[in-house]
């Protein structure tokens, strides 16, 4: 998510992007100090109200409702629809005994590690390394292509990949032309297909994060290593990567959070299928809640996904820290 990219971009260059820590408290004219404390608090907190209300109604309330609903048989059809009742931990015991849920958990890990942690992260780092110091026109052409695949809306990316991987699509036409095997990618290799599509879609983010970090690395260290006879490979492993350690950490967190919640791309490409072969947690949750109308069960899965997200988000907050 671009949103976090910016927070990250800022964290990378403390002096330039982060404001000086702790702006001094305003020195107010003497007369104002005598105003009643209550009215002062109101002026100070009042502006926060719209944001707090929006977040309370649309973020906190749903999370609260999820906790409530996960202990009920809330449903849109059947018994749960007529009269909702508390069923204790039944949703959770059902969930952990549900082989489809366990499968979706495994597929989520495969998808997140394959397309995010390995795919986008490594390819992004590689691109940032290779692009450094290259011809600027060449760099902007390649950069534009990669960023374009990231800027276009997710549903358009899904449409583009649907066409690309289709039986009559560009890829299979090319493979056919070269007399190479041309399987029905989306049916035979659904997980592989969505992983590749998501690498295509998200690599730009990691590339931009790493390029920004590298442009602020001190060049003298690199020159010193070079003078001391380190070859390119040694310079990468011993100098560049250790210097980028913090950036790599934050990028991994952000990429994991983004990949964990990918829905549109998988839903539009394979809809979790064939069967349940590519239904990651968000897809499985959607199907249980909106196709089979089991809202209570879906809410229990929401909590699982939220907890996983919250753990990574907490690590991310710890890495970034608040400078206020």
């Amino acid at each position, binding site marked *: *998510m*671009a*949103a*976090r*990219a910016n*927070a990250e*971009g800022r964290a990378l260059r403390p002096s*330039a992007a*982060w404001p000086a820590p702790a*702006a001094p408290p*305003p020195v107010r004219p003497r007369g104002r100090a005598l105003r009643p404390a209550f009215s002062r608090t109101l002026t100070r*907190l009042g*502006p*926060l109200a*719209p*944001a707090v209300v*929006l977040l309370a109604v*649309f*973020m906190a309330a*749903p999370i609260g*409702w999820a906790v409530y*609903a996960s202990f009920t048989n809330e449903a849109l059809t059947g018994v749960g629809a007529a009269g909702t009742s508390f069923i204790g931990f039944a949703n959770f015991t059902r969930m952990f005994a549900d082989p489809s849920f366990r499968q979706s958990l495994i597929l989520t890990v495969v998808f997140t590690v394959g397309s995010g942690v390995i795919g986008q992260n490594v390819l992004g780092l590689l691109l940032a390394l290779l692009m450094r110091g*290259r*011809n600027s026109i*060449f760099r902007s052409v*390649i950069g534009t*292509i990669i960023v374009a695949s*990231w*800027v*276009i*809306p*997710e*549903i*358009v990316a899904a*449409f*583009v990949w649907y*066409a*690309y991987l289709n039986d009559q*699509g*560009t*890829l299979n036409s090319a493979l056919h032309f070269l007399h190479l095997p041309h399987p029905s990618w989306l049916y035979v290799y659904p997980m592989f297909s969505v992983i590749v599509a998501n690498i295509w879609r998200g690599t730009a*983010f990691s590339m931009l*994060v790493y390029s*920004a970090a590298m442009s602020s690395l001190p060049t003298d260290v690199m020159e010193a290593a070079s003078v001391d006879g380190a070859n390119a490979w040694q310079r990468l492993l011993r100098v560049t990567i250790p210097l980028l350690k913090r950036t790599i950490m934050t990028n991994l967190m*952000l990429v994991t959070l*983004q990949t*964990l*919640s*990918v*829905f*549109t791309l998988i839903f539009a490409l394979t809809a979790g299928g064939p069967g349940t072969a590519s239904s990651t947690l*968000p897809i499985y949750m959607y199907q249980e809640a*909106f196709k089979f109308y089991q809202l209570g069960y*879906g809410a229990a899965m*929401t909590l699982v*996904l939220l907890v996983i997200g919250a753990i990574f988000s*907490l690590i991310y*907050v710890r890495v*970034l820290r608040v400078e*206020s």
Partner: protein
Amino acid sequence: MTAQTSSGILPAALRSFSVTSPRKGTATVITYLVLCVIGVLFLAPLLWLILASLNGNATLSASWPHPFTLGNFRQVLTGSTTLQPLLNGLILSGVAGVVTMIAATLAAYPLSRYQMRFKRPFLYIILFATGLPITAIMVPVYGVFVQLNLLDSLVATALFLAATTLPFAIWLMKNFMDAVPMDLEEAAWTDGASSMQALRRIVVPLIVPGASVVGIFTFILTWGNFFVPFILLTSQNHMPASVTIYQFFSQYGEVSYGPLAAYSIIFTAPVVVLYVLVQRTLGGAFNLAGATKG
């Protein structure tokens, strides 16, 4: 494939690198080759979209437009079934953008200017919330929308979209405000302005660029969102273009790919234009802006 054989087909400008040292030259050529291959692999899926949109007889495979035509664009720009979704998207993202911009600017001011007891925990919660997967909470959001009878409401959906981008927007606005020097306001206060007057006359003009970035940003993020309107809106005449594109291409069989490709390009254009605009105006710290929020 070795660098020697392939260097023959590269332009002279690239080959001249090998003059300095043969080994370094080989490495440079390999680097350019690898980058070219990655570039082609990334371009290949996109190429189809552009070629198909200009093709009178587009199929799912990329091929040179034959006949070359702008008819696909004309066709989707004249039908009301295709314009209504764009208008709905404009309402959703426009409302979300404006609401987020105002709420974030108001919230950022006290967070940037005053020392308050709960400020640090509040900022932690905001930062934490930027990391939460929005996809995860769609089931309970649907539940709450049902309870409050808000389902299929464009305004409520827009407000929810605003709330999803709000944590990051507040974070961004606070950093903008921190960059506006305090002494300007102090000078205004000494001259007898109230804190609200100082805000209106001094701070607001200085943070207009920042606030517009937040607004544009929200617009970009919400314009491409598919899952939220797909869940929260029910009637066909409320659906934004992201949902209609999905509906069109998931109808197997009788899809006319040319017009759909043209429609996708029209749908993508505003995001690309705004992205370039934000990047050109602010550059630097903002070159990471984009539209990937799922």
